[in-house]
């Protein structure tokens, strides 16, 4: 569907192109997929605005950066591994290998939980070193950015849990893998997207 062609149509005139089958203009992608894309746009706006606010405050003369934490490097590696596991799960949906799907999904989720625990550990480490949120604005942004990202990952885990249940049910009942194909694809897309956002946020934190 070309949106510009669509918007320039004159609905008050008989339109020969409309005659064949009174065509429906919808169903151009699975509904869930479109829903996720719209949601990711909203997520993008949230992180873009936060990033702009961060960039704005970095320009202030009294900006004092946070120290670099090795835990964040480790967490980043875990999140990348989690994304790979999710991708592995998606690949297995194409191979009709339900056990592979299950493994990939399980590893992806467990690694994500490990990532979140790691982020909490990074917070604890910073607090123990005295880098409280109210000491400098850079500190505050560290907690804000990691917190916002963590909440989005937690939301993803809810969808992941539902997908795990579906996959388990199919594996036990020898059901069709088609029933979970879309769920796995959506989870994978979400995981990759949040990985991308984390990489950008992490780079920003390093730049400070």
């Amino acid at each position, binding site marked *: 569907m070309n*949106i510009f062609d*669509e*918007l*320039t*149509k*004159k*609905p*008050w*005139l*008989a339109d020969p192109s*409309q*005659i*064949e*089958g*009174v*065509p*429906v*203009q*919808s*169903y151009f992608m699975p*509904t869930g997929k*479109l*829903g996720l894309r*719209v*949601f990711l*746009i*909203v997520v993008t*706006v*949230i992180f873009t*605005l*936060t990033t702009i*606010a961060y960039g*704005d*405050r970095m320009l*202030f003369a*009294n900006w004092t950066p946070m120290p670099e934490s090795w835990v964040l490097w480790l967490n980043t590696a875990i999140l990348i591994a989690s994304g790979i596991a999710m991708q592995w799960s998606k690949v297995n949906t194409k191979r009709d290998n339900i056990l592979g799907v299950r493994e990939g999904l399980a590893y992806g989720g467990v690694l994500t939980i490990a990532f979140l625990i790691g982020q909490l550990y990074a917070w604890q480490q910073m607090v123990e070193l005295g880098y409280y*949120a*109210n000491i*400098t*604005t850079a*500190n*505050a942004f560290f*907690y*804000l950015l990691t917190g*916002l990202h963590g909440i989005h990952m937690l939301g993803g885990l809810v969808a992941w849990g539902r997908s795990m249940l579906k996959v388990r049910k199919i594996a036990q009942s020898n059901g069709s893998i088609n029933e979970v194909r879309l769920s796995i694809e959506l989870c994978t897309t979400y995981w990759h997207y949040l990985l991308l956002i984390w990489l950008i946020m992490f780079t920003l934190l390093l730049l400070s």
Partner: protein
Amino acid sequence: MSNGTIEDTQVIPAAEVEEVDLYHAHSFITKWVFSQDAKVIAIQYSTTAIVIGLVGLVLSWLMRLQLGFPDTFSFISAESYYQYVTMHGMIMVVYLLTALFLGGFGNYLIPLMVGARDMVFPYLNMLSFWVYLLATLILAASFFVPGGATGAGWTLYPPQAISEGTPGINGGIILMLVSLALFIVGFTMGGLNYVVTVLQARTRGMTLMRLPLTVWGIFTATILALLAFPALLVAAIMMLFDKLLGTSFFMPEMIVQGEMTSSENGSPLLFQHLFWFFGHPEVYIVALPAFGVVSDIISTHARKNIFGYRMMVWAIVAIGGLSFIVWAHHMYVSGMNPYFGFFFATTTLIIAVPTALKLYNWTLTLYKGNIHLTIPMLFCIAFILTFLNGGITGLFLGNVIVDIPLSDTLFVVAHFHMVMGIAPVLVIFAAIYHWFPLMSGRYLNEFWGQVHFWVTFLGSYLVYFPMHYLGFVGVPRRYFEIGETSFVPESAVTLNEFITVMVLIVGAAQVIFIINIVMSIFKGKPSGENPWNATTLEWQGETTPPGHGNFGKELPICYRWAYEYSVPGVKADFIPQNLPPDKIK
């Protein structure tokens, strides 16, 4: 054969329409309380919005009592006055108008108008309402916490919002921010539904350019809201950090009661940018659905196709896009680079072009139409006048050199109440009078509708026209008490009293409206099916009100656009969107 239809041979059998899985409730609780039916959710949204809106209305009475008759009411203190101002503004803009237009009308009308059985994510839709209700309850609860609700002004500007001396800086502001965050979460769930339903669930033949303008308005407003509300969310979260964790995102270094605060050079301006990046699109989040509703009601009640349909669609989209690059015209008095101000003044003038185009098109739709002066039509005509008035004063305020002297006066209050308060509320009334027969199978009482209309319409003008004058003579806004001020003439005091009396009269008319709704639900005159002889699909279902699944066994097929009125050579003066060409007589 009229334009916009297809030949007989191209009629498509209904059986070819793709069906969708529909959730069926099995108990009273799942049918009427935790309902996944968009129509029930719409009524839940609307009821909640109207109830909290009535709270907002009462708050405005209290404010006006103080302004009209200062030193008269002992229960109104300076602190409580600012709490009324703040809560009135936030309730009306976010919890009433946004929720009613998108959550209420969006839920009821989108599936019906596009020919769908329900929203595409009904469970998420249900969650959306419950999160909204929770947000509203938290907001209302803030009246009852120690210190009361926040009195920071509806824009919640820091540092004032969380600094000593502002009412409600303990529980009040925290509950306000939490409530806003929840509202946005809830709205996002609903908004995803509205957008994806319009894109994915249209019935066969319902192309984008056959959508009624109501759907276009709600659809575009939802996209705006999905992009704009995150700014408010981010601002609310950051301010919560400032308040609860003592961070300094927005809090500058300050001396309070002779002592330096612990704040570390935060940026109040950053908050203003975030707030208005949400705040200005918010005007259109409310206005665009109103534009769409007015277009459909005018066309139906004037028995004439909407003038310039394509232009109307493009204008809605253009206004939506432009609304994101005008936000800083709310911040001229904050101080900004003159080039920056010039840019925002220019974009503000540019956005008036598509808006004016819509006004012309409504007027031209009425021109030589077979105008039925029904209550919905009266409210729509009143809207056109009011939006024109409010829009024109907006052009004044969009200019930096005019805005700066007027910014802190009642002129601004009068302007934005005309454009963003009265105008959309008039459309809400029009919509309720128009679609009430669809929702209930009965008309609202005509006589009390006339009383409601004339008192509301004339009363609003008697409130806000004098208020413009007060602004011109320099009466400041936000003040609890003006006191004796040499530049404010005695007549201004009398005028303030007059405005207060008119506000109370207009308020009383709304009580009549509520009573009319309640009475008409039970004793209203039966309307039958499609009482306005409308073309759009919501009126073409098997039953009135529409049942679960909206359209009986088979979904309708759309054969034409929504504005086939008074077609030459056709006996009836309207052709429904789903009427097969071979059935047209």
